[in-house]
Each structure stands twice: as structure tokens, then as C-alpha cells.
């Protein structure tokens, strides 16, 4: 167990201290007084466990491969952006672009997510216990996006093969997004995922897995067909 006090230090010094701990084989690290500063704990290529005792600014946990990061406050823009593997958990709410372009790993947000959640994700798993804002899942390619609460406008616009589940209301679906029935056993798997990643009181307060709406790509935009010119005009 190592403790790093961020107060009075530059971001570079804090991140260097985190890396030094890992190099010294101390893999449980607590960062005190993070103060919502940007770029904390980015590009950690190790399975270390890092706890921020407060809020994080922009891009916290971005580009990590294997680390487990717990943010005990809220997170700013682009939390966990482009992560490869590992876990990022936000106890509060996340800003815009949370989990954008992730390739793997799991991002859990106990509160709400702002605009552009999980855009262009290429794998991995995103679980939001609260609501999310405008244009979540835009151009998402693979992986799973779960929002237990309500989702904002243009949800799942122009997606490829990401599968989304929504527990609350959908303001409106984006271009080529469709609601699909769940396959046999799918609701059970979703329930297992939610129970595994959300603390019990949070999970219990959310809808039953079978009541989630599944949203996938309608596949109209996957291949160009000039007979579908109208759809393309609308999409572009």
C-alpha cells in the first residue's frame, strides 16, 4: 500500500510517483487530494490498483492496459478514453466522452454520464447506473454499452456491432439504430454482468434485466446501396 498526496505537485510529478510505486512492486496505490486535475493515472500498462480519493479531471485512466482505477468522486471529459484492458470505476458522474474509443476492459459509472458516452468503442464494456446524455454509442464498433437509466437524443447513431441495453427511457434513437428482441439467455447474462459490476444497493434499484431494451445497428449503413440513397442523405 502506497499513498501519494497530490496537493502541491504537478500532474507530471504525480504520474511519475504512481509509476515509481509500480516499479517498486507496490501495486496498491491511493492518490489523496486529486482535486479534479487532468490526466491522472494515464497510460498505466500494469495491473496495479489505483484509488483516487476524490474527483478526477480530463482523461483519467486514458490509454491504460490492465490497471484497475477507482475514482471516488466524479470524472471530467474522456475518462478511460482508448483503454485497452483493466477497469475504471467512477463513484460519481462522468463528463462527456466517457469510455470513448475503448478497445477492451470495463468502465463502470455509478452516477450519470454526459454527452458522447462510449463513442467509437471498439470492444470492452461500459455500464452506467444512472442516465446518459446526447449521442451515446455514436459509431461504436464492438463491445457492450449498458445504461440502467434514461438515454439522451440520437442514441446508438451509425453503429456497427456494439450491443446496447437501456433500462430507462430512450429520448430518441440515432440513424440506423433499432430495438431488437433479446436472444434466449441474454437477459440472464445481462443480469450477471450488472450484478457483477454494480454494488448490490445500486443494482437492486435498477430494472430487471429482462425489462432492458436491446439496441443494435439496423445494418442499413453497413453497405452502400444506391437504392437507399434517402437513408444516406439523412445519415450524412
Amino acid at each position, binding site marked *: 500500500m502506497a499513498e501519494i498526496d497530490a496537493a502541491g505537485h504537478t500532474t507530471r510529478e504525480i504520474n511519475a510517483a504512481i509509476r515509481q510505486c509500480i516499479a517498486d512492486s507496490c501495486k496498491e496505490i491511493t492518490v489523496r487530494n486529486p*482535486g*479534479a*486535475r*487532468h490526466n491522472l493515472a494515464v497510460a498505466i500498462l500494469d495491473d496495479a490498483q489505483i484509488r483516487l480519493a*476524490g*474527483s478526477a*479531471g*480530463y482523461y483519467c485512466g486514458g490509454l491504460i492496459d490492465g490497471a484497475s482505477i477507482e475514482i471516488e*468522486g*466524479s470524472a*471530467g*471529459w474522456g475518462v478511460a478514453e482508448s483503454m485497452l484492458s483493466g477497469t475504471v470505476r467512477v463513484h*460519481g*458522474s*462522468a*463528463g*462527456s466522452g466517457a469510455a470513448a474509443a475503448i478497445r477492451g476492459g470495463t468502465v463502470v459509472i455509478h*452516477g*450519470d454520464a*454526459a*454527452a*458522447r458516452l462510449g463513442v467509437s468503442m471498439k470492444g470492452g464494456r461500459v455500464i452506467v447506473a444512472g442516465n446518459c*446524455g*446526447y*449521442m451515446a454509442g455514436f459509431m461504436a464498433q464492438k463491445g457492450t454499452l449498458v445504461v440502467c437509466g434514461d438515454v*439522451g*437524443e440520437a442514441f446508438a447513431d451509425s453503429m456497427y456491432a456494439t450491443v446496447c441495453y437501456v433500462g430507462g427511457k430512450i429520448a430518441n434513437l440515432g440513424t440506423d439504430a433499432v430495438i431488437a428482441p433479446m436472444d434466449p439467455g441474454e437477459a440472464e447474462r445481462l443480469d450477471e454482468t450488472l450484478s457483477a459490476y454494480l454494488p448490490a444497493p445500486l443494482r437492486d434499484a435498477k430494472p430487471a434485466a429482462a425489462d432492458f431494451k436491446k439496441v443494435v445497428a439496423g445494418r442499413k449503413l453497413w453497405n452502400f446501396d444506391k437504392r437507399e440513397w434517402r437513408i444516406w442523405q439523412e445519415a450524412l
Partner: protein
Amino acid sequence: MCGIVGYLDKIGAEGGNVGSVLLGMLNALACRGPDSAGVALFGARQSGQLVAQVKLGDNGNGTARAGEVKIIAEKFGGREFTQTGAYLRFVFGETDDLKPFITGVEGAGRDVEVVSVGRRLEIVKQVGSPSRLEQTFGISEFHGKHGIGHTRLSTESVVDLSHSQPFWGHGYPDLAIVHNGHITNYHQLRRQYEQRGVRFYTENDSEVVAIFLADKLRQGADVHAAMESMIGELDGSFSCLVATDSAIGFVKDTFSFKPLVFAETDDFVAVATEEIAIRGAIKGDFTVREAQAKEVQVWRR
């Protein structure tokens, strides 16, 4: 970039420390744009009179100009004159029609501008960082319950005092805005307002936000409705804070282009471009959330 901040003390009396809270928040955001900084502060309500902040000119001939402005202002009951930097502050008699006052005072010179008028509102802004604003005006000593502030990274228009923010809803007492973003139908809106005889003082697209809201309020809309109508009628990106003598609020554009976070507790409301500003200026245990696209919130004092 640009950083915007707002604060409302929900429980304190008029003697609240809004000036020092806003300064603390602005200092934390100064790296987002140090071109210019400003605050719109709402102090104790003047009874039967208005307080004015007047920019004396662009070229440092302040003292001579101050004399000329004083003579004009005295015709409107102006008194308690104090000059700080490029500004002359004074109080004058309450009136329903500010037009003769503004035309009169600004007649003292082409570069004279009435920066703010209100029962509570005082706007001070200048070129440079928030810490320079504090050096010139000592804003941390300003007492009141609410206010908004801005630190600017200029992208579209020149850097000088007039182009700095906050903007007063020119001619409408106690209305101030700060804006982060770009209003892309600015020229179209400006042309429409100019055809109706509205004067624009700058080339800054944010000025039209203040003029738009002043226009809506004059037509009888309440603050919330006026802000909501921005979403349909203004194009481009905007995270905006609006303050009147009795309320403070924010509005965000359709696409949520620009950041804006806020915290509300039983004691205060704090809004800022980044959470670092709120955490830097206010200690304690509270949660912060980013505003959603098209979200409008107004808090009354």
C-alpha cells in the same frame, strides 16, 4: 477554450464572500485563456438608485475623461464617484428609461462605454489574467450573494476591455452573461437587431447573447424561458451563465459542445467550465455533475 464560473450563496446575507470565491475559481481556470478576465458581481441592493461602471476610454487619458463623464452623470443625479483603472464607478437616480443616461454618458467620447448598470450589478473586466483583475480591482473584497466570471481565450475578435466578458444586457439593468463557445448565426442575428436600432459595441459574438436575452426579458419572458429560447434561436456552441439581480443559471447548446459542470448543496450553487475550479475554491463534501445538452437550470436567491 475560455473559462466561465458562477456562484450563488444560498444561505449567507449580503455580506457573503462572492468576490473571493469567484476569484479562486477563475484563478484555477486561468490556463484556459489568460487574454482577459472579468466578473459580474451582485452586491447589496441600492435603494432608489442605480450603480454604474463606465469605461473611460481606450488610451489611458482617464482622469481628464472622468471629469467630463462626471459633469454629464451629475445631470442624472450621479454621485459617489470613484475612478479605478479605466473605470469610473458612481451611483445615480433610478429611472425606467436608461437610454438618455447611456446616450448622455457615452457622448463624452467615442471610446466611452457604459459597462454595466443595475441595482446590484457591477461588471469589471480588463485585459490580462484573473490575478491582474484582482490587483486592479480587489474583487476578492467584494461582498454579495451571487456573481459570474470569465477568463478569455480570444478566437474571433480582438483583445481589449470592451471585447472582454462578462457582457451586460446593454440597457437592461442587472442582466449579465458569460459565454464559452461560438455563436455561428451571430452575423444574421446582429443584422436583425441593428435593423431595429440596437447598437453593438464589439465584434465579439458573445455580445449577441446578452442582447438576445435583454430583448426576450423586455418582451416579458422570465429568465428561464428566455434562456430556453436560446437553444432554438442561437446556432453554434454555447455553455452560458446568466445572472440577474435575483437569479443565476446556465444553458447549454443542443450538441453539448462545450464543458460545464455544477454542484448544488443546501448552502451554495457553483457552476464552472471544469470541476478543478469548484474544488479549488470551495472545500467540503459535495458532488459535481456535467450539464447535459439543452439543459437549463435557474436558481433564485
